[in-house]
């Protein structure tokens, strides 16, 4: 399957219909999920209405991690099989993943404000997410700093894989660290605490985030493929004249 998308032409013909399809799917899922989460699902017996922020916060956390894992996979493929499209995929996913991580931090802070009375709490999950956000920034900064695109891609891939290995270490050390400072955090992000009636909107919103990522990724990749094609053509013309 991976080889099938090796050449950009086949990717372009596939993504031509795939990204709008995913985009429409995302819009539909948001149209179903958002009102369901905002109005029709029950408030939390303790936190009241503020729990509704969970439906935009938790999927962002899941997918911020999911996208980084996707980038890790793409980086691995691009490094091992020198697969140009995998490099384009990792690079196109980075800004989207960074947005999801940032959105997770902001919505986490908005959720924390009414429940704890402060805008930022060094809760284990938020701290890990902050470090993941910095990891994204590092990846984007490395790409921006190196002008030779091919080498930048492979160096960023090495960094991405190193970061991927580092994430579980950060997760558990921050968990350990947070038990040192204060009790288990209020901000439970799912699992037992999720009341079945809340699962419906949560999974719908998670699906919407996934479809949005797919659409934005494919569109971003198409843009990159066209950009490299146009720049290569300009380079050839400049050299020919």
């Amino acid at each position, binding site marked *: 399957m991976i080889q099938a998308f090796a050449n950009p032409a086949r990717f372009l013909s596939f993504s031509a219909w795939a990204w709008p399809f995913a985009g429409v799917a995302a819009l539909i899922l948001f149209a179903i999920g958002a009102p369901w989460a905002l109005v029709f699902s029950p408030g939390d017996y303790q936190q009241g209405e503020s729990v509704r922020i969970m439906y935009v916060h938790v999927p962002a956390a899941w997918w911020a991690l999911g996208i980084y894992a996707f980038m890790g996979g793409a980086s691995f493929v691009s490094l091992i099989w020198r697969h140009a499209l995998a490099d384009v995929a990792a690079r196109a996913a980075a800004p989207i993943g960074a947005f999801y991580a940032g*959105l997770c931090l902001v919505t986490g802070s*908005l959720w924390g404000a009414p429940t704890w009375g402060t805008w930022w709490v060094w809760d284990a999950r938020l701290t890990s997410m902050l470090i993941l956000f910095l990891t994204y920034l590092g990846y984007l900064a490395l790409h921006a700093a190196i002008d030779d695109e091919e080498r930048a891609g492979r160096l960023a891939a090495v960094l991405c894989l190193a970061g991927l290995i580092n994430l579980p270490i950060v997760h558990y050390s921050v968990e350990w660290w947070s038990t040192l400072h204060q009790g288990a955090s209020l901000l439970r992000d799912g699992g037992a605490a999720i009341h079945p009636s809340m699962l419906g909107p949560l999974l719908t919103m998670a699906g919407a985030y996934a479809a949005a990522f797919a659409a934005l990724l494919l569109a971003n990749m198409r843009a990159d493929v066209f950009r490299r094609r146009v720049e290569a*053509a300009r380079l050839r013309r400049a050299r020919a004249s």
Partner: protein
Amino acid sequence: MSADFTDPVWMYVGGAYLLAALGFGALGVVIIGRLTRWARAARMDTESS
């Protein structure tokens, strides 16, 4: 309709959803803008050469 709209916390809830919507919108505009710009440049290249 089990949502209690009188609760003042709606400011935060609304804010979170609004920010999410604005974020997705901005990212979408940027990426789709990039796509159309470069797609048009690529098409012009193929037509002219």
